[in-house]
């Protein structure tokens, strides 16, 4: 059954790619829509390939730093709100406010304060912070009422309850948030690069668009999509494993 499903998935992908090739070849969508083979040829071209690899490394670095910082800050803030309930309302509002700030408006401010080099990581961190604050908060409240009552009757301390029950029960929701945040971090890093970073996939996207290097533009976008989908897929596997185990 699974092999059959895999076969159909493969067939679907092949159909999609063939459609792309045909649409490009006969210029159905205009002269700016390249064929698949033109795009793939970019990866075979040595200098362009090394440009893409270098840029991908720079973007991944920014996205990872921003992701790590935003995730830690978000999760720690969620733990703080969980342990000190009086702070929760205020922290909730602050997180919503952070999320409401448009990245486009924040960019120039960050260029001045954090600098061109650090802006991509900083812009990656903002949405990750919000997503992790929310998902960790939901996760920390996910343990069933009965398990909570059990810990109370066992005479558990606040710390024991957090470490042996709430933090573990929070993992599936936390990983769900981390999965969604991975894509947001990539978007944040790329938008951050548009404000004048020295390099990165966002810079290549802008340059190739302005220089009418259409296959390079598409090839770059494909790299971005692959990285985003890949990180989403990996974290999805982790989330499923956690759900199987923690339920």
């Amino acid at each position: 059954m699974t092999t059959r499903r895999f076969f159909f998935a493969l067939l679907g992908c092949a159909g999609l790619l063939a459609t792309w090739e045909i649409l490009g070849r006969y210029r159905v969508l205009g002269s700016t829509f390249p064929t698949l083979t033109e795009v793939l040829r970019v990866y075979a071209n040595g200098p362009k390939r090394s440009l893409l690899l270098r840029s991908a490394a720079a973007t991944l670095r920014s996205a990872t730093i921003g992701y790590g910082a935003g995730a830690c800050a978000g999760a720690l803030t969620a733990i703080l709100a969980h342990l000190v309930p009086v702070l929760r309302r205020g922290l909730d509002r602050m997180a919503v406010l952070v999320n409401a700030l448009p990245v486009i408006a924040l960019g120039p401010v960050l260029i001045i304060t954090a600098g061109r080099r650090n802006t991509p990581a900083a812009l990656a961190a903002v949405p990750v912070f919000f997503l992790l604050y929310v998902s960790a908060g939901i996760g920390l409240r996910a343990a069933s009422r009965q398990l909570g009552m059990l810990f109370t009757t066992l005479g558990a301390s606040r710390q024991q309850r957090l470490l042996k029950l709430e933090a573990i029960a929070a993992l599936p929701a936390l990983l769900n948030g981390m999965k969604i945040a991975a894509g947001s971090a990539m978007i944040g890093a790329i938008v951050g690069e548009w404000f004048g970073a020295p390099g990165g996939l966002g810079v290549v996207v802008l340059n190739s668009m302005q220089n009418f290097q259409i296959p390079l533009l598409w090839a770059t976008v494909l790299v971005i999509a692959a990285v985003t989908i890949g990180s989403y897929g990996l974290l999805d596997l982790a989330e499923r494993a956690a759900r199987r185990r923690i339920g």
Partner: protein
Amino acid sequence: MAKLALHGVTRSYLRRTGPRGKQPFVALGPLDLQVQEGEFIALIGPSGCGKSTVLHLLAGLDEPTTGDVQINGQPPRQLQAQHALGIAFQEHALLPWRTVDGNLRLPFEVAGLPPPQERIRELIALTGLNGFEHARPAELSGGMRQRVAIARALTLNPKLLLLDEPFGALDAVTRLRLNFELERIWLQSRPTTVMVTHSVEEAVLLADRIIVLTERPGRVRIDIVVPFSRPRSATLMRTPEFHRLADELTAGLAAV
């Protein structure tokens, strides 16, 4: 072992009466109840009479609105702090990410004691869980999960054992088998026990004394001593005495 005393205990809640209005209503009591050390009490009554509330009050999970609850002359929270309370719920409340062994260790970890492997082995043998030490709750049947939950409630040799319909979710055959098992396990240490149940037969089979509560607000309607000697057996269930007592209790339950 623990001696329990409830004096004039009531528990009221706020009930929403309209879009704005809220009114207090009494869910339980006033209730007076004394339980001797080592006594096994079964608490039965119609749905919503506050049986589980009584258990929560004894466990220190809830506070009475008026009156007081004492365990050996102290509030229930003292017993929590001494790690001397065992509890089993209708839903097993096992940690799904821990094995049977890991779940049985939890009370020791929380009490800050090194989990003695021999005590855990003994409990596993006592509850017939041999060979399932490393299974996770999801891999066990409903009856086995309840056994683990009861074993866990007994790990620290509690002074007070509270059972909230521990077999309520099981089929009749498994339930009866676990009733006899519970008595056998209970006889090893004889902690003071309060069990909430819906089943009159279960109450007669297991308890030293049965309390029937009235409809809301729950008060003591019947307080009766079960005269049968222990250990009790399946033959007891076929005697006229057993049926007479069960019928009397059922009639008491049905009378409004």
